């Protein structure tokens, strides 16, 4: 019999993994556990719902511990269409431990409620889950103005910091500045729509992404070097970027990043300058 001590709340993500076999993306893990707890009336992780979420630091820490220290799950970074993302799978040991834990600690009615919700939401991808959560649980119309004002301040601060830290060979600064500019533009466009649901979903998803970038920024102290390895930073924030990109594109708020209309961001003269530079300079001249 394997004896591994896990926190009381830890059965929820492990049980979800046991039922689903694997969970692609950190975002799906977060939102799935949130929905199981909220709709199943099950105690567990604390989720922050306002400026940053719904997101649980405790769940993030447990997932790391289950993966890196206890060997109960495997975490892989997989290359996505645009950005890499995390995939979680239970290990053999993890399956044994959760089976035993459920029998000893989780009442049948709680297990049944959780199982039914895991099956219900487990078949949806993270973008569908995000949209569902944001629509149902976050940011009522009355608080949009306040959230909007906080967000524009946060994005403006991030823009100043990362413009200062920009280096042409630092992929992190390049990505973060792009995300900040894109989100600012999306927010201003969605504000003009006066559509509460669109405003709520956009503001919530941009809040969550901004919160993550604020965290990463606050923990970075040396602007001389590129702060994060390419894969790590992408995996940390890629789910949110993909969601915002996908949602804004689908709702016609602003094209997704790969398909934006350049005229939203640069003028005609700038476009001509870019074409000229490309026509005069070989890529190899810039690879030193």
């Amino acid at each position, binding site marked *: 019999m394997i004896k591994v001590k896990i926190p009381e709340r830890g059965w929820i993500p492990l049980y979800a993994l046991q039922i689903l076999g694997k969970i692609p993306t950190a975002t799906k893990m977060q939102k799935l556990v949130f929905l199981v707890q909220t709709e199943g009336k099950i105690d567990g992780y604390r989720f922050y719902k306002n400026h940053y979420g719904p997101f649980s630091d405790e769940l993030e820490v447990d997932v790391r511990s289950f993966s890196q220290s206890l060997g109960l799950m495997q975490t892989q970074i997989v290359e996505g269409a*645009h950005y890499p993302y995390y995939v979680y799978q239970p290990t053999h040991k993890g399956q044994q431990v959760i089976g035993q834990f459920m029998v000893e600690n989780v009442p049948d009615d709680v297990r049944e409620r959780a199982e039914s919700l895991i099956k219900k939401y487990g078949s949806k991808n993270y973008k569908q889950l995000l949209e569902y959560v944001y629509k149902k649980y976050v940011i009522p119309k009355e608080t949009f103005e306040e959230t909007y004002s906080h967000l524009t301040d946060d994005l403006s601060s991030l823009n100043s910091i990362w413009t200062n830290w920009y280096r*042409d*060979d630092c*992929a992190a600064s*390049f*990505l973060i*500045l*792009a*995300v*900040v*500019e*894109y989100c600012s*533009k999306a927010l201003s466009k969605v504000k003009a729509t006066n559509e509460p649901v669109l405003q709520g979903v956009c503001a919530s998803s941009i809040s969550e992404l901004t919160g993550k970038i604020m965290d990463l920024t606050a923990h970075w102290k040396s602007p001389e070097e590129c702060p994060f390895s*390419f894969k790590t930073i992408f995996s940390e924030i890629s789910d949110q970027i993909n969601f915002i990109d996908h949602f804004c594109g689908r709702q016609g708020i602003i094209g997704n*990043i*790969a*398909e*934006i*209309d*350049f*005229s939203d*961001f*640069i003028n*005609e003269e*700038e*476009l001509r*300058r*870019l*074409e*000229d*530079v*490309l*026509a*005069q*300079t*070989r*890529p*190899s001249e*810039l*690879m*030193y």
Partner: protein
Amino acid sequence: MFFETTACVTYAFHATYRFAGVPGVLKSVGNEIVSEFLGFCKREKISLCITETVREEGLSKLPEIVNRYFDRARIRSPTVRESVFIKLRTRYTQLAALSKFDIVESDLAKVSALYTSFLKNPELRARLIKLKEKKPTRKGLLPSQTDIQILGEAVTLNLKNRVCFVTDDDDYIFFKNEIKQNLGVDIIELLELRSFAQTLISRHK
């Protein structure tokens, strides 16, 4: 055909866009030439080789090349940069997927010895000095370890198949005769691919 990093990156530099609803294409010098040549290779069933080293080097360099173009054009917008970068990266990975070879052993020692020998020859040394002036971040006179590794991979492949090394990198182009003479690998300059394809066609006839 062994595609070196600069050739792959040049192929990748082709991005469609819309400006006020009107479509357009951004492409770099040499892009059409490489694209045409790849079409030629496909038609003539000529195998492509893009090794893991080339794939990784190009992917890691793409963001900075995009940034440098935009910086030269004095355009700030990071979103437009990211948009272009996403398209180039997709094109680059699609190209890499066409390769018949992947991980190749590199004859590093042979290539390192050749470049080191250039230091003792005043004329060749002068060429290395000229190269260093063109590449401001280079610390010594010799090419980077990655450049040596990539040519070493071509040398290994050349033992079994005739390898033509397609490149726009002066580290190789400046020494194309020496490389052919000592390592047996043909260096094909990217901007001469059209005439090279013509030569292949006429030989075939």
